[in-house]
């Protein structure tokens, strides 16, 4: 097991999720373990299809029709979210754990003004409040709007992508949740707006102490904003640790491959390094470590038994029998 993690905000333990599809049962998540500390920004990084978004949805127990959580727990302050009934879950969503999605223009309801949508958010958790207008204005200025009243009167399609994402954030934060899940919050935005949103996320964490689970396939985004990072591959967590440490000194070979593949200024003709092979089918995943068919350091045990997350360097966990050595 991992090193004892006490007083965590959110613990995901042994999460196993499957999808029933036409072609078979998809093993989407296998024994996923994640710990989010109070007040930290934890990045969850991985390729498309690695299971990052699905993990986030599982935390909220918002999995699609054909999915099923086979085993596992999601402990918020020690009590299992997955065991709650629908009404309890609804109260927790938004009030304790909130989400923003990737495409802000699709996240906001096109036929209602921002004011109406904010009011519905607040009403759903706190009933009729007397200072609704003031709170809405304050929330919007906290996410960086100079003219909150104008925004409140607007419809979503009248706002730019960056503005929409900030509105979405304001709505998600309206009831002061303890954890904000940001699923690819900047992917649909241009680079400049990206930086602004990431800075905003950090500001929010600093001001309110809200933990943030930042999901992205972009290593640069994670490097910019996250305190710690968890790397996912094919439905498993393969490495966790402080961002700078992991990126400088990756222990898992997949993480190494990812970082090596980042385009760098290099002499002409040297080509882009790649990780050989391709993502495995999740209907028939490889036995043992799911990365072992592509791993240069794989041995016989790697194909036999799944490695568990264990401490390899200080404060860094890796699921590997042959973690890479320290870089000088």
């Amino acid at each position, binding site marked *: 097991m991992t090193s004892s993690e006490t007083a965590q905000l959110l613990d995901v333990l042994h999460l196993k999720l499957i999808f029933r599809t036409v072609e078979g049962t998809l093993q989407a998540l296998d024994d996923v373990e994640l710990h989010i500390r109070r007040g930290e920004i934890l990045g969850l990084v991985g390729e498309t299809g690695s299971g990052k978004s699905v993990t986030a949805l599982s935390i909220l127990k918002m999995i699609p029709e054909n999915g099923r959580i086979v085993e596992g727990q999601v402990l918020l302050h020690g009590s299992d979210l997955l065991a709650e009934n629908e009404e309890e879950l*609804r109260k927790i969503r938004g*009030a304790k754990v909130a989400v923003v999605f990737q495409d802000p223009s699709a996240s906001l309801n096109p036929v209602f003004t921002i004011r109406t949508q904010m009011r519905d958010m607040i009403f759903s958790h706190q009933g009729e409040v007397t200072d609704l207008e003031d709170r809405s204005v304050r929330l919007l200025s906290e996410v960086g709007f100079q003219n909150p009243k104008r925004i409140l009167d607007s419809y979503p399609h009248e706002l730019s992508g960056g503005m929409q994402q900030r509105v979405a954030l304001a709505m998600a934060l309206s009831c002061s949740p303890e954890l904000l899940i940001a699923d690819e919050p900047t992917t649909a935005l241009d680079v400049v707006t990206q930086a602004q949103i990431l800075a905003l996320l950090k500001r929010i964490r600093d001001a309110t102490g809200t933990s943030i689970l930042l999901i992205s396939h972009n290593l640069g985004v994670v490097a910019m904003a996250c305190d710690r990072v968890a790397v996912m591959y094919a439905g498993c967590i393969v490495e966790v640790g402080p961002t700078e440490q992991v990126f400088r000194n990756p222990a898992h070979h997949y993480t190494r491959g990812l970082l090596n593949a980042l385009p760098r200024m290099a002499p002409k003709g040297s080509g882009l390094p790649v990780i050989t092979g391709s993502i495995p089918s999740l209907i028939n995943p490889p036995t043992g470590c799911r990365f072992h068919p592509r791993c240069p350091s794989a041995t016989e045990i790697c194909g036999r038994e799944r490695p568990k997350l264990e401490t390899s360097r200080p404060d860094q966990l890796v699921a590997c029998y042959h973690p890479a050595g320290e870089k000088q």
Partner: protein
Amino acid sequence: MPTGLARYIARRLALALIVLLAVVTFTFIVARVVPSDPAELYVGPKATAAQRERARIELGLDKPLYVQYASYLLGLVSGNWGISLRAHTSVLGDILTYLPATLEIIILANIIAVMVGIPLGVYSAVRKGSLLDQASRLTAIAGVSIPSFWFALLLQLLFFGQLHVLPLEGRLSVDVSLYYPVKTITGFYVLDSLLTLNIVAFVDTLRHLLLPAIALAAYPIGLITRMTRSMMIEVLRETYIRFARANGIVERLIIFKHALKNAITPTLTVLGLSFAYSITGAVLIEIVFGWPGLGTYTLNAIIEADYPAILGVTIFGTMFYIVINLFLDILQSYLDPRVRFT
């Protein structure tokens, strides 16, 4: 007024007027091809040649076509829609006399359709795949497939013939119209009886309205249920609904406010189609129920080749349809702000 709405209304109004003009012209031309001689109809079969000739001049049939067209247009605008060849009464006057009876059925039928169709569509979308869903799909298909006049006959057979709970035909029972006659204020018996506190007639009117309205409501119920269901299913899959759910918005608000408002706008289009259907469906229903409305008037006009009447009714019916659609378009653009800018 919300942004852009005024301009949208103005645009649609202008378009509607142009289309109306084209419709009038088209109808006028078509009616002119009628083989029978209007003058002969006017004076009757026993008239002399001289009388017929006088009728021709009186009806303006001796003037060139474009003059007739122009004077007809002027007449339309000023309220003179011609004289019914058969009854020698003003066509517009006739139309307005028979209109309320038909409108009563149409309005009640569409109210029933909306009150049944939208909730049915919403619930079957939310409980997709359940027994209720299958039942409502079948109802919808039955609604759009059933011949309205046949349904009307079956209703008569069941509710009058077998159960004896509802009347067979007409707007009022004979005894009610004798002992508790309805004073004509608006022409709408429902309103008039209420306004004059004639409760007996009020109840009787409603009893007579029920079967025709139900018969006419079948098709709209089918349309509305189907449309509401498919739109709700689509909307409930949208990201903004996921976002709302993921952040804990109350389910009641999600379905009946956040999803429904998005789903309702295409349903309004369907309501327009439903009114169009109602106008012509009324003709069929009125025959079955012996209802003294515009449908019966139209039918008699056709049988007797009373072309000013036919012309008048067609233009009126089309105008009504255009106005309803215009209203629905405007309502749609009010509900969905994105539409105004297309």
